[in-house]
C-alpha cells in the first residue's frame, strides 16, 4: 500500500464523522483498506446521499458506530450484507434519511447556517425517528408546516476523482456533490487517477469542473482507485467483483476471508 494513502488514512481519528459519496460519483475505494488498517473506529458515516461497498466494508471491519444515509446497497449485486446484518444486530445506529435531506444538511454547512428548510418528509417514519429534525410553522406564511434539517459538518470528506494538479486543485467535473461534501467538511482527502502538471484553474474549460485547493487537505495518487466501482468518464464498474463480494460477505467469516485476500494489482 502506498505511503501516501497511509498518510491520508492517518488523518482520521476515532469518533470522527466521515462523508462518503454515492457509488457513481467517485468512491475512493483505494482508501478503504488503508482506513481499515489504520483502525480508527467509532466512526459516524454520512452517505452522500447513499452508500455501498465502502460503507459495507467499514461496517464489516467494525469501525462504524453510526450511519446516516438514504440507503445502503450494492446496486445490481443486491443488498449490503454487513450493513444489513449490523442493522439487524443493532450493532450500528442507523439514521435513516432521504437523499435531499442529506444534501440540505450539507448545504446548510456550506452556507454557514444552522439549518436548511426542506419540503416533504411530514408524515413519514423517517421524520418520526429523527428528533433533531424539527417541524416549524413557516414564519413567512402561517399554517404551513415545514421541516428544518440541521447542518451536517463532517470532520472528513473522502472521495476519488479523475485528476488533480500540483497545487491541490481537483477536477470533479459535474459531480458537484463532491464539492458540496468538501465545502461542508473540515478537511477533504482525495485520491485521483492522475496528477497533471498544468493548473486546472489555468483555463476556463477545466476550471469549470474544479474544486479549488482551498477545500482540499491532501491528495494521493491511486490509479483505478474507485475499483470495483467505476469512475465516470474513465472506467466502468466491475460488477462481477461486486457480486463476488456480495456472495462472500453474507457471513462474517466470508467477509473476513474476502478482506484477507491480497488486493488485485
Amino acid at each position, binding site marked *: 500500500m502506498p505511503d501516501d494513502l497511509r498518510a491520508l488514512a492517518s488523518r482520521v481519528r476515532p469518533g470522527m464523522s466521515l462523508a462518503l459519496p454515492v457509488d457513481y460519483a467517485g468512491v475512493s475505494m483505494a482508501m478503504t483498506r488503508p482506513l481499515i488498517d489504520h483502525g480508527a473506529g467509532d466512526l459516524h458515516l454520512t452517505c452522500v446521499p447513499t452508500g455501498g461497498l465502502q460503507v459495507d466494508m467499514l461496517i464489516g471491519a467494525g469501525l462504524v458506530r453510526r450511519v446516516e444515509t438514504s440507503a445502503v446497497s450494492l*446496486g445490481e449485486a443486491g443488498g*449490503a450484507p454487513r450493513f444489513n446484518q449490523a442493522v*439487524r444486530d443493532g450493532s450500528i445506529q442507523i439514521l435513516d434519511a432521504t437523499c*435531499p435531506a442529506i444534501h440540505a444538511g450539507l448545504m446548510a454547512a456550506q452556507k454557514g447556517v444552522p439549518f436548511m428548510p426542506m419540503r416533504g418528509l411530514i408524515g*413519514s417514519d*423517517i421524520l418520526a425517528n429523527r428528533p433533531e429534525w424539527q417541524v416549524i410553522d413557516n414564519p413567512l406564511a402561517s399554517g*404551513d408546516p415545514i421541516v428544518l434539517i440541521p447542518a451536517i459538518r463532517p470532520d472528513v470528506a473522502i472521495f476519488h476523482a479523475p485528476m488533480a494538479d500540483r497545487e491541490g486543485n481537483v477536477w470533479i467535473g*459535474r459531480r458537484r456533490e463532491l464539492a458540496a461534501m468538501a465545502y461542508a467538511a473540515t478537511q477533504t482527502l482525495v485520491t485521483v487517477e492522475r496528477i497533471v502538471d498544468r493548473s486546472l484553474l489555468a483555463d476556463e474549460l477545466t476550471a469549470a469542473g474544479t474544486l479549488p485547493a482551498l477545500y482540499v487537505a491532501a491528495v494521493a495518487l491511486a490509479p483505478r482507485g474507485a475499483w470495483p466501482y467505476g469512475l*465516470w468518464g474513465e472506467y466502468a464498474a466491475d460488477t462481477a467483483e461486486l457480486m463476488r463480494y456480495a456472495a462472500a460477505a453474507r457471513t462474517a467469516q466470508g467477509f473476513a476471508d474476502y478482506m484477507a485476500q491480497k488486493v488485485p494489482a
Partner: protein
Amino acid sequence: MTALPREILICTIARLLDGVRHVAVGASSPMPAAGAMLRRALDDGARPVRLSILGSVEHNFFTNGSAELFDSAGQGRLDAFFLGGGQIDGRANVNLVGVGDYPQAKVRWPGSFGSAYLYFTVPRVILFREEHSPRVLVDKVDFISAPGVSEPDVHRPGGPVALLTSKALFGFDRARAGFALESIHPGHDLDEIRAATGFAFDHAAAPATTPVPDAATLSLLRGRVLDELAETYPAFAAQWRGDLAAMTSEGATA
C-alpha cells in the same frame, strides 16, 4: 401481433405518462425507462419529453450533482417519477426500509432514497411493482418511507396517481386516500387480484381489461424503443429480444 406481458406493462406506463415534459426513473428500472422512451417516441415532433435515468452517465443531463434531480422537482420541473416499495399499503404509503420493528428490522432493505421528498413534489408519481402479492401490497406498511396522503395544510403539489403491478392497474384517489381497480391485465381476474392484494380497494362489478397495444405502437416499441433501451439495459433488452424470438418461433410452429 400478440403482446408480451411486459409489453402491455410498458405501454400502460407510456399511457400514464401522457403529456409529461420531464420524467425521471431509477437506475435499475428498465420497464419505467422503456415506458418513458415509448412516450418520447410517441410524442416525437409534437412535444419534447426529457428522460433522466438516475445514476446513468448516458441518460443524465444534470450537471449539478445528485442534488439537481431533487432541486428540479422542487422547482416544479419534474412531472413524473416511479416508486417501488418493499411494501405498499392501501393508503399508498410506501415502505423501502424493512419488515418488522424499526430500527432492528427482521428484513432490512436499502432505504428510502429520495422517496420522502419526490412523493411530495412530483405531480405524477407512479407506483410500479411487478410482484402483486399480499406480502407487497399490505394493509399497513411497517415503516412509512413516504406517506400516500398528507393533511391539507402540508405543502404537497405531488403524490401517487396509479399503482401498476404484473396483474392490474389501480388508480389512486387522494381525497378518499384509497385505490380503485382500473383494469386487470389479460390472463388475470378479479378473484385473483382480490386474493393477491392485502388492502381493500374499489372496483367495478366487471372490471375493464388493460388495453393491449396496437400494431403501430408494438412496432415502435420493438424497434426504436428496444434499440434505445439496449444501450442502458443490455441484459433486459437481450432477454426481451429472446422472448420475442421464442414467441415468433412458437407462432411459426403452432
